[in-house]
């Protein structure tokens, strides 16, 4: 009898044990040795430029009849803004590696990553179009990735090369839908990202390399459209620049944003609601980026591009109120961002400039008062929110 009781108690005690998961961080990502081993056993590691040079064609290999495909997507000079080249799904592994340069916490990089690879001291960058919201939570800035590209595609959207999958845009509710409908580089579904992207080591933002450039270099040095593709995504730092309070009007070029001052009555409140001098007023869900001009001492200007969905979109451009008037350009300094080449013949985009800088958030701006206004020189710019 006793034996039976003890047996029962022993069984009960044995059952009350919890499962533990001894997760070892170092096993969660690849080491350099792991990368080498994996690549050696499975295929070849390409640099980003090698991948583009090897697999990206001018017309794309995706469509059986490229003449049909071409008809809608040129820049007027026979350059096709959209292309898709599929990468072989079988055979040796096609690998690239790069460090994530984007951070979508600020909402300015929606379902897109830009990766940077430093080859011989120079940047090679490429966009990744992915169907992952809040991707930075999984792939934060500074995280290096090893990507197996087999079965994916390389495409160009507005001449921006990107890793993608073919996707058919049938958005009949888009503005001028007829010009947009068709095959485009599409977002890589999340399961394919999880399967093909591997972390190499842990994030290290300090290893991202920024090239210090001037505005003139941005807008003038890369007029070769094919060469420009390889500049797209490059991380740059512009020094001694400022927001001049203008946006690039489609017809009239840089135009001063209308700032409505409720105290002074300056500006038209009706207009101000739609064109307030914030980083990106609403486009009523058209979704295209809004651009704000920056300039430097040489008088050259280029654009800072911001999505209306960015968390900082409704913050005022840096300004001072001097003598009852709104004055721009009193805060000057450094802007770091990702250089983008936007070549789109759709015509709906009011921005004529081909180059724009995309910042991740306002932390990419380091602006200080120059002392020409009321604010003492050297005072850091404090973002101010636009409130209806």
């Amino acid at each position: 009898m006793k034996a039976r009781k003890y047996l029962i108690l022993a069984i009960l005690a044995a059952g009350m044990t919890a499962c533990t998961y001894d997760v070892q961080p170092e096993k969660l990502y690849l080491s350099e040795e792991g990368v080498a081993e994996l690549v050696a056993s499975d295929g070849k590691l390409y640099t980003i430029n090698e991948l583009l040079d090897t697999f990206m064609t001018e017309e794309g290999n995706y469509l059986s009849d490229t003449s049909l495909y071409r008809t809608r997507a040129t820049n007027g000079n026979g350059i096709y803004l959209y292309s898709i080249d599929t990468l072989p799904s079988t055979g040796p592994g096609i690998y690239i590696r790069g460090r994530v340069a984007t951070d979508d916490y600020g909402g300015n990089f929606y379902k897109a990553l830009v990766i940077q690879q430093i080859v011989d001291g120079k940047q090679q960058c490429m966009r990744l179009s992915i169907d992952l919201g809040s991707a930075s939570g999984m792939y934060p800035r500074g995280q290096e990735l090893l990507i197996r590209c087999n079965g994916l595609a390389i495409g160009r959207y507005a001449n921006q090369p990107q890793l993608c999958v073919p996707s058919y845009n049938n958005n009949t509710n888009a503005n001028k839908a007829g010009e947009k409908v068709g095959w485009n580089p599409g977002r890589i579904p999340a399961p394919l990202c999880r399967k093909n992207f591997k972390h190499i080591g842990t994030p290290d933002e300090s290893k991202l390399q920024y090239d210090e450039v001037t505005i003139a270099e941005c807008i003038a040095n890369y007029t070769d459209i094919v060469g420009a593709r390889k500049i797209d995504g490059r991380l740059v730092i512009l020094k001694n620049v400022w927001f001049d309070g203008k946006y690039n009007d489609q017809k009239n070029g840089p135009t001063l944003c209308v700032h409505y001052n409720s105290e002074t009555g300056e500006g038209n409140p009706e207009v101000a609601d739609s064109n307030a001098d914030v980083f990106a007023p609403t486009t009523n869900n058209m979704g295209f980026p809004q651009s704000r001009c920056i300039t430097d001492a040489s008088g050259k200007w280029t654009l800072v591009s911001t999505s209306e969905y960015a968390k900082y979109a409704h913050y005022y451009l840096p300004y001072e109120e001097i003598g009852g008037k709104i004055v721009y350009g009193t805060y000057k300094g450094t802007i770091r961002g990702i250089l983008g080449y936007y070549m789109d013949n759709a015509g709906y985009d009011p921005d004529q400039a081909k180059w724009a800088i995309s910042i991740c958030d306002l932390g990419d701006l380091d602006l200080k008062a120059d002392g020409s206004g009321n604010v003492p020189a050297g005072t850091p710019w404090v973002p101010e929110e636009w409130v209806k």
Partner: protein
Amino acid sequence: MKKTLFFLLALCGATLSIQAQQNPPTSDQYSSPTRLVGKIVNENGEPVSSYTTVTLGNQNISTTANERGEFTLSYLEAMDEEVIIESEGYLSNIVLVQLLGGQTNDMGTVTLYTDLSRAAQEEVLLNLVEADLNDDEGKSQSVSSASSASQDVFNTTTSFAWSTGRYRNRGYENYYEKNYINGLAFNTAERGTFSFSSMGGLNDASRNKEVVNNIEAANFTFGGIGMSTNYMMDASRYAQGWKVGVAGTNRQYKGRVNATYASGPLNSGWSFIAQIAWRYSPYIDQKGIIGEGISYNSGGYFLSAQKDWQNGHRLSLITFGAPTERGQSGAVTQEVYDLTGSINYNPYWGYCNGKVRNSRIVRSFDPTAIVSYEWQIDPQQKLRAAVGYHYAWYSNSALTFYNAPDPRPDYYRNLPSFLYDGQLNANGQLISIDNTALMNPLGTPDENGYLAEQTYNGNIVGRTMDMATYQTLTDLWKARDNKTTQIDWDALYAANQANNISDPNGSASYMQERRHNDIQEGLLNINYANSKFGHLKITAGLDAKYAQGIHYKSVDDLLGGNQWIDVDPFAERDIKDLATNIGLSQEGIENVKQNDIFHHNLAKKEGDRFGYNYYMNMVQANVWAQNEWTFNEFDLYYALKVAYSSIQRTTTMVNGRAWYLAQINYAEADKYLGQNANDIFSGKELPLYKGFAHHFIDPAFKLGFTYKINGRNRIKFNAIAQTEAPLARDIYISSRVHDRVLNTVYTHDQAKNMAEYYAASQKIVGGDLTYDFNFPVIRGRLTAFYTQFFDGAEMNGYYDDQARTFVNQTLGGINRVHRGVEAAAAVKLGTMFTLTGAVNASDNRYTSNAIAVTSAENGMAFGTKSDGSPILEYTDSIYMNGLRVANGPQLTASLKLSFFHSKMWFADITCTYYDWNYLDIAPSRRMMGLYTGTRADGTTVNGSYRTVSSGVNDQSTINAVMLDEQTGEMILDKFGTPQLMYPYNLMASQESLASTNVWNRFIFDLSVGKLIYLPNRQQLSINLSVSNFTNNTKLRTGGYQQARLPRGNIQGKTEEEGNSVIMPNAWKFPSKYYYAWGTNFYLSLTYKF
């Protein structure tokens, strides 16, 4: 209220006056009464102490046996009589006796044999109830209190056999099934339901019970429209001896061991029983089988001690509990079932460092203590009282994420079907020619310019979908790729590891949170029964309960992250829109996203509470009285109850969204912040913030009449009318965030008349008519029932794709009717076989269009009114009239052939048919404004069924609401709901869950068992129960429609101009389904000594 109380007092007064007049027959009146005495024992010769009724078939007289199994029937007519003996857990017995007049007839000892089949089924049923709790997102269908079978043929047949199809008694929700323990009401005050898991594995604890069918008279409670079950756990009710058991199954758990010792009544007057049990399953690392990715670990104890005194006093001390930790599985869409090829696919688990890990781990423990007192004042009077206390820990874990991708493997964008999005034209067909007519889609067009479609995996794949991507995704799902079809735990750890480095003071990207829904209750019950007045038996009772629901979240596992920052990610994301509503200051903006405005951005570590921490304080009290009149030809009873209840929410955290809503509704700030609104606005921090208490008094009245045609045929009629206060879970619009309740509750609080007073209470009127028959060869019943509910309420929450935030939707004014027939008959085929048939056919449907109030949980505006003010909530009518209540099958029928041999062999085979089962619809898809363009409150809908995507190359829209060509009026169905064109009609219609293949509606069950007698009164019983042995994996037992509608935006238009359109992809947010398990078994061995 005064009238009600007066009526109750008058009823009791009438009872007392009747008492004075109705004296029992005396020996003077009947010089030598004819009596029948006897004793009921089980197969071991021990008294059958569970609730045992003894009925004389010809004389309409019945009684119950006492704990020693003894019974006495007096004042009988001398005649040949059939004595029908029925007891819970035993096979019924009919004994023929000759009653001799003027003397006491002793029928001696009658043996009842244990119903081995039922005993085996009870444990299986408890398991089913727990399995039913697997999806606690509020849509899971719970089985009824399935263990509450009584001796009624219909209930004994249906409680087990129909549980597979999730049949519910008369289609009622499970909170209408009232469960008591030694008279104490154990349905929780907050949710109204009973936690069967509190007795998980303790089948002995739940063995002895009284069951009351629906409205019938009860002696332990007033009862209601549903079944009432009283579990009697007094130690003396259990047979003396040891019992040890072991069981194996392929269900939620894989093995079970248990041991019970009962002392039986000792000479000292004490009785004791103790049971321990353990059920276990390791993590199931096998895909496609029942319980994949689930673990189970549950202990259980039951202790009961009882002391009987010679003078009729009895005291019982009872305690039980079943600490349990178990994994869960969830409902998924049909596409996922098809891709994985299994109805057992479970999205909640994945591999973590090579081991199976489930993200949804329930931990529950409901330790209960009861002190029960009983005083047999005299043979006709009994007083029972009990007090009890239980603290129910219940928590469930879930993954949560902050600025990181959704980790759910079955997230709709991860499925191949998402590639269809945007590839359908206005007719719901895959586009075969594109909108530019340039034939960009792949393939060679025909002479009309249309392209042939291609297929993969049996699905038509559009020419505008990349076949390679579709194939890759499909193949990953079909191959059950771990990173695709399961949670990628290692990736979550990697993300947190990366985040620790890139933002060491920031919030972890992923975390496993634990949602606690504890409740503690103190209970009191007093019950007095008096049958000394001849034909009249009076019963009166008092139930009282104080309950406190305790709700909070805690950090369960940071998954390697440094900390979790306690802010609301949705509010943080929407802050821009919130701020522009009212022009918040920077400090105010910072407040909005906080879960506790007095403690900003707290860094939480494992074990810390976060998110919310509120209490639901409830008081309930019922007083009731019942008179039962018993005559030879008929019985009559009537009963009255008055119920008081109160609900008050308190919280230790002031939520930023509550503060924000109070700001923008400043005149009604206290509705959101409660009694301490001024303190909060002035920045005063308090240990506890009190909401407003809401008090309800609700009367109920019921009556019943039984006409005894003869001893074998009876006609019974029961009726009930009552009002019912809302449950705490149903009145708060967002109890996690603020104190606001339904508008009808405010109307009630400030009522000036009866109509207003009962604005928030549901009114129920119902009745049933039963023909009962009980012949030696056949017995059974036929019942017709009709129940009407008025002014019901319901709470829904969902992500609104148009508002792009989480919204709460309260439904009021829900009327419904439940009507149908129940029939069952058991026919004896010789001495060993019984054929039992049972059928339920009902029509349970809504009879009104509900009124819904919708608001964003974070207070975001839905648009702008004509005066420029924001639309913070809107009111609309929901087209519900005529829809079926989704509460299990409404047509169920079964046939069971049972075998029983006196050598204690039993076997049965059951065939059950399920039909008329319907999907739970999403009210958000049936709002009137979607059909008409204008809501009930006059506001305009941005993107209704009248302005769906045209599917052509411009920004025009078309009308999907069917209009009469002649009149231009909407075409309505017979219930007044406008009809929609395909495919939009799929979005709002109520789907039948019945398979189109009739054979898939059948389930076959089998059980077999043997009781072996061993020397020295030892026994070994072996039971095998095989459910669904034909492995029908096509039986849908339930499901629900997702609330989200596929929407798109028209670029360039403002909200005021109508920039939102409903897209034709009716399959984008498809319904989710529950399936009956395939073949499953339960094998048990029990050894008694």
